[in-house]
């Protein structure tokens, strides 16, 4: 029966014929079925052997059927009209992309959330008090000048930094404070490859008991590792900002050369990221925090700058040109 069935399989000219073969042998009333009652009546010592034979027969038949089915399917194209062209383009819905500035803000926020920070927000149009005075900026500091700052006819201004959000947060909450504040800032810079009159910053502020410069260093070093990779090193240099004392600038080791010196880092091995420092006691006094009870640190960073470093963008203007061929690279 095995040979006969295999011959029948081979002879089947198309899938319909093959199906008939299957029904004849393996179907509910197929020939193999007939063996089953015979098994039950067979002598006990032969029953096991017969069962094994019957199963082997079934398996062999199923294999023969599958092989013939595959052969028929393969031959179908040539035999009975064209096959489906599986190489045709798939149909899908192209997802959009997020702007590199948004991506850096989202990545930064995600990292700082793991360190217990939350996001705080403030207006783009600020008061001189929040943007300068409360941040201990001397009244004749050049940044107040109309050549540097966009003052509006109303006496308000377009914030030159996200730092005024620090003041708004401290005015509305008591310590402990742990916030980051991404946002748009404005300076009367003439636009070139590295300057834009319109840019983004992310500010961070921590106020609590016993917060030290070491905590600031630890926090920013951890951020650097998560943002730029575990091999990046962070360097702190003393600097000056009116609202922090001590003030520092911090650099990341160059992501391109790893610190050995290259064109990107101008052979210094370091890439300047931004400023930071311990909150100046004069700022705490403005918002009614007791500088003897609380200390804190603040830091800021330029989002465009981070995006340029992270994605290898060489001209800040491309971030605001909105050429889709540029934007769609950021999937």
């Amino acid at each position: 029966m095995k040979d006969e069935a295999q011959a029948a399989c081979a002879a089947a000219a198309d899938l319909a014929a093959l199906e008939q073969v299957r029904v004849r042998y393996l179907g509910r009333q197929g020939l193999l079925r007939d063996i089953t009652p015979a098994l039950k009546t067979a002598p006990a010592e032969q029953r096991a052997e017969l069962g094994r034979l019957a199963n082997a027969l079934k398996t062999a038949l199923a294999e023969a059927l599958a092989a013939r089915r595959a052969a028929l399917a393969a031959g179908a194209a040539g035999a009975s009209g064209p096959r489906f062209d599986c190489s045709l383009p798939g149909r899908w819905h192209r997802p959009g992309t997020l702007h590199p500035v948004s991506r850096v803000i989202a990545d930064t926020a995600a990292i700082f959330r793991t360190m217990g920070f939350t996001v705080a927000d403030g207006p783009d149009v600020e008061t001189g008090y929040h943007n300068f005075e409360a941040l201990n900026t001397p009244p004749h500091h050049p940044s107040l000048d109309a050549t540097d700052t966009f003052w509006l006819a109303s006496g308000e201004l377009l914030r030159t930094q996200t730092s005024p959000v620090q003041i708004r947060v401290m005015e509305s909450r008591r310590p402990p404070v742990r916030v980051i504040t991404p946002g748009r800032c404005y300076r009367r810079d003439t636009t070139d490859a590295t300057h834009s009159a319109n840019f983004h910053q992310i500010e961070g502020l921590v106020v609590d008991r016993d917060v030290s410069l070491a905590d600031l260093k630890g926090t920013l070093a951890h951020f650097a590792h998560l943002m730029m990779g575990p091999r990046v090193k962070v360097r702190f240099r003393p600097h000056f900002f009116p609202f922090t004392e001590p003030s520092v600038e911090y650099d990341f080791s160059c992501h391109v050369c790893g610190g050995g010196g290259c064109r990107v880092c101008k052979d210094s091995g370091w890439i300047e990221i931004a400023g930071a420092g311990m909150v100046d006691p004069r700022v705490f006094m403005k918002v009614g925090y007791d500088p003897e009870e609380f200390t804190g640190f603040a830091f800021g960073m330029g989002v465009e700058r981070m995006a340029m470093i992270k994605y290898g963008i060489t001209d800040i203007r491309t971030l605001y040109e909105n050429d889709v061929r540029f934007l769609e690279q950021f999937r």
Partner: protein
Amino acid sequence: MKVPIAWLRECVDFDATPGALAEALTMSGMEVEGIVAEKRAPDGVVAARIVAVTPHPDADRLRLCRVDDGRGEVEVVCGADNAAPGVTAPLARPGASLADGTVVRESAIRGRASAGMLCAEDELGLSDDHSGIMILPDGVRPGTPLAEVLGPPDTVLEVEVTWNRPDCLSIMGVAREVGAIFRRPVRRPDVSFAEEGGPAAALAAVRVEDPAGCPRYTARVLTGVRVAPSPWWLRRRLLQCGVRPINNVVDVTNYVLLECGHPLHAFDRERLEGRAVVVRRGRPGEIMATIDGARRKVEGLLVIADAAGPVAVAGVMGGMKSEIRPATSAVLIESARFHPPAIRAASSALGLSTESSYRFERGVDGEGVDWASRRAAALMLRTAGGSAARGVIDLYAGPPAPRRVTCRFARVRSLLGMEVPADEIVDILSALGMGVAGRTAAACEVVAPGYRPDIELEADLIEEVARLHGLDRVPAPMPACRVAPGGPDEQEARALDGLRADLAALGLSEIMNYSFVSADLLKTVPAGDPATRVELPNPVNRDQSVLRDSLLPQMAATVGRNVSRQSCDLGLFEIGRTFARKADGTTAEKTRVALGLLGRPARIGMPGRGAATGEETFLELKGLIEGLCVCRRLGPLQVESVAFPALEDGWAVALRAAGAVIGMAGLLREDIAREWRLPGPAGLAELDVAALLAGAFDVPVCRPVPLYPAVARDIALVVDESVTHARVLEAIAAGAPKELTQACLFDTFRSEGIGKDKKSLAYSLVYRAMDRTLTDEDANAYHEAVKNVLRKKLNAQIREG
């Protein structure tokens, strides 16, 4: 600021190489932005003494100079006026390369052989001076290579001085920092000189009418000076620092400014009417000519005036009338301290920033006023001769009270998170020039020197300790994750991130435009409300003169710009703030999202050819917004035709969801699209983000999933063209029982057979009960009821079969 290392070494000793010094300065707070090694003087250039000068026989402007170049006398042709017998000047011998790469050759100039070339400073690459040949010091032996005369090449550091450290805008200030870093003493130059004749007060008079603007004014008088070019060593220092040499009097004032950071001014005393000056405010209508040749209005500004009118804008720039000129013989040296805001006001009113105003604005040391004056007098006597009158005119209310600041050692530890030994703290503060007035086991009290106005509080001292002890010695422990309560902004920020993700998932790419928009663009693509628009009083340029009150114009322009770059399938969104003036004059901000659509951006895989039609683009845009409403759980979107100036009539709609207007959408006006050569209609929409996020904080409430099967029935109806899909849905809803769960348009059809101004619409209706299986009879009865309402309300013809 530029710091020549050789000059620095005059004030302080140190062993470090320029590179190591730069690193040490950078790491202590004065960032070194550049280290520039000077070039050597060109080879083949030697000192030569001019022996005789005769006119060139065939050229009026040329002369023949016989020069001694150390090997003997040779003849060179020279065009400079200052080539005179006895002068020693650099001679480029044949074969020498000049700064611009020219190789000097023995040649004939107008028929006379020239055995080389006498050089001006610019030809040697020393400065940009081409007024005449360079004059070398008398007594230099002819034949000495120029490189030897000039001395070894120096190295110049370019340092960035932070705003709080005006004292470091000087060689001596930088030297003090270097001394503190390496713990070496700092030297001050000698300022002693001989005084002769009558007292200064007899030769000039000074009056201060505005003591608030000018807390101290000193004047010294020098007579019998001879104005001439400065000696090379002085010129070289100025050139190294980027200051143009003028003459031996003016150069000395600039030299002292660079050396100690104190700006000075030298007046030609003979040209001061009444030989007297007064410090006062400019009077109404007063105008003066400054030395740069500009005529400037000085009303209200702090000026120095003589009896006839202003002769200098105090602390900013001197006047033409009393400037030092070759004929000047008597000099009044002004050394003063002006109030920083007064100088800042004048500098910004005149749009004029000078080396002088830059320092006065940041503050100079009142105690350094007389020292600078003495230093200038001593140097001028050396370079320009003459004699100094006895004494000084000094109008000074007296020094300010000393600033005493206490530094608690424990506070240093807690603020820095690092242990710094008390001895080290005291040592650092002393090295910085602070006088230690007292010390206990827990704290020290110091007196800040006059040149450090930035030292006011304990935190200021702790910063000094941190930067000189070394920030790299502060540990950087893994952050302790403490939790602080957040505000509502955190929720909103997350919701906004969600919105961004939804928009990207719907196939739109995020763009970012400036918050400024051009007035011209607003004319082309009108949006927002001109009545409440905020204009910038001082824009960077015309294209950025208005604060945007709608995102639409820039979205349209972005579409246009991409088309001009051959990208014609665009799906874009922007989330940004818009601005409008409130009734009280202050500015309101609103966050919005704009959408822009052109062609078939999202479809991949046989997207179709040819421009998308208006219908296609509009429905695609509407579909995106409907999708967004679903993502944001806002319920069904409703549209309502409106007129909007930037959008094509008949294709503009107001958008409504969850009972509120959430924005508007439509197609860009055809004439604009044509002008910008868009290949097809552009879909634009603007939505209010607050409305879109209204449901962001709702929690979905779970409802049971239906257990019983649904019955679907199709229906096709012929209606007048004027009957809208919305009206059909309304009618269906009116006639259907609560068991109707879905009514979906699946085909529209027009033909002559149906009739003119008619259309056929086909809907699939789905009925389902929550509590039982519907029978055919149930479904048929529902369907009949729907048909009847459609017939009655819409005069519809129901097509059977």
